């Protein structure tokens, strides 16, 4: 992955990531399970089937043809246009996220093949400040779509985001408009855009690029919606059903095309891409 070569830029200590313990306890069923088995199983508990978070790299690996990944992310990182500081300065927050994830930002753009079909793919990483969309994510998504146009390939976006990056203020809000505008170009070029919504796809990401897929697929267990439970309960104190913002809720109310198990996503993508690639 090209941009990680000079990883001293991010002050990332990759050694930190090496995890010595071989076992983990599943938060769902409580069983002790082999970490390696979990990882080989798409981060699904081999005992109870619970899905754990996938990092962007793990997600990419679970979806693409082995070894087909080339990182084509733009070499950019967040700046601090507002000189934002909450409990800590924004640049510090970014650095910490970079150290934790070994990523430059909350999204990776890759050139990959899926079941032999070349596509451009963007994958968010929730660990990086909740996968929030700031200027870098917006730019990377647009860059990905433009690469798809240049290469005449489909574009796939795997969302995992709580919404906008508050620390970039209005700049982050406006990424919603920016990504929507460039998505329009993809449509004009008759190139397919498959949006994959995972846990969670909410707020500004759900209310922009993620909802604009030609086909929208939710990973089983995804959380999909605009306003969080807490916001609604704080604002209007309304009772919410237990299936609020679940994959089933989104399917029932017509927002998404399909709900697919994590382990079947790759095959699913191959199937749906097949229709569009033939049609070119």
């Amino acid at each position, binding site marked *: 992955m090209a941009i990680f070569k000079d990883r001293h830029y991010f002050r990332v200590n990759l050694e930190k990531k090496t995890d010595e313990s071989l076992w983990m306890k599943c938060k769902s069923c409580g069983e002790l399970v082999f970490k390696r088995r979990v990882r080989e199983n798409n981060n699904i508990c081999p005992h109870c089937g619970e899905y754990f978070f996938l990092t962007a790299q793990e997600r990419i690996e679970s979806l693409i043809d082995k070894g087909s990944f080339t990182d084509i992310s733009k070499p*950019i990182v967040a700046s601090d246009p507002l000189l934002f500081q909450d409990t800590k300065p924004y640049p510090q927050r970014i650095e910490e996220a970079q150290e934790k994830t070994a990523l430059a930002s909350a999204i990776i753009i890759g050139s990959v093949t899926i079941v032999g079909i070349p596509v451009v793919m963007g994958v968010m990483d929730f660990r990086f400040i909740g996968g929030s969309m700031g*200027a870098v994510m917006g730019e990377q998504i647009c860059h990905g779509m433009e690469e798809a146009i240049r290469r005449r390939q489909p574009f796939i976006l795997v969302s995992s985001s709580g919404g*906008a990056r508050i620390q970039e203020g*209005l700049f982050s809000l406006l990424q919603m408009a920016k990504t929507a*505008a460039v998505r329009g170009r993809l449509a004009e070029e008759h190139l397919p855009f498959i949006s994959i919504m995972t846990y969670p796809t909410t707020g500004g990401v759900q209310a922009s690029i993620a909802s604009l897929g030609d086909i929208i697929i939710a990973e089983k267990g995804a959380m999909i919606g605009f306003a969080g439970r807490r916001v609604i309960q704080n604002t209007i104190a309304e009772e919410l059903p237990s299936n609020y913002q679940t994959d089933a809720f989104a399917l029932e109310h017509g927002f998404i095309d399909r709900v697919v198990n994590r382990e079947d996503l790759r095959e699913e993508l191959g199937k749906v891409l097949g229709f569009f690639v033939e049609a070119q």
Partner: protein
Amino acid sequence: MSDERTLDLLEAKIKELRELDKTDGINLSTEIARLEKKLEALREELYANLSDWERVKIARHPKRPYSLDYIREVFTDFYELHGDRLAGDDRALLVGLARLDDRPVVLLAQQKGRSTQENKERYFGMTRPQGYRKARRAMSLAERFSFPVISLIDTPGAYPGLESEELNIGGAIAENLLAMANLRVPTIAVVIGEGGSGGALAIGVADRVLMLENAIYSVISPEGAATILWKEKERMKEATAALKLTAPRLLDLKVVDEVIPEPLGGAHKDSHKTASSLKESLLRHLAEVSDIPLKKLLAARYQRYRSLGRYSTLNDQ
């Protein structure tokens, strides 16, 4: 520093003195003039360097002019259109035809309520999916008949609630962003009060984005940011300052094109004057964007949004 209420009291007193001056033949004109001067000085002191939080309060002031006030004063012949043709008619986002001087335009206007009853009907100015989809229908109408589109933005945000979610409010906002980015007519958006997040942006993608001087425009409310980032809702003043959500700051950041001046103390101090500034600005910008050939206009709009956002390249670090 004196606060707004004290100054209002002083103004009332001066008015009483002026009545006294008239009715009883007592000449108080020198004293009154002196007091008025004093009042003006105090007011300038109070308002000249409004803190960001004070602007938030003005933006949300219950007497602040709302869309319908400007529609009455800036436009003529407002002809409201109702309904999204799908599921309902949202009263928090009005759409319609109107004339700006003699030119027909399509208006998209978010509207808060003044009374409890009106606020109930208008969901406190929070737009629902039915409103965004009505706006989208109005955009299509504008496109078919080459009417420019003018948005008046004033909402705490999109309406959060079960019904909104059931009607895919996120999808409705997203579709509007896409539609406005490609709308084949000139478009102008003005934040006249609160520009609340995606709920505002959903009618705010335009060739020109203007703000009234004391309007705010933010990715999240100060209270929301305080709750999420500081875990204390009460730290909204800090959040306000950090978010840089006032018109002057957003002009500095070059994300809005122009700040339309308000009277000292805010638009509600003289709504006619504010309306007339708004009208002047709208006419000027509309003339400008109308002069640009459509193809160029669309390319410029695309470029505007394509290039939005600041980041560093790795080599810069």
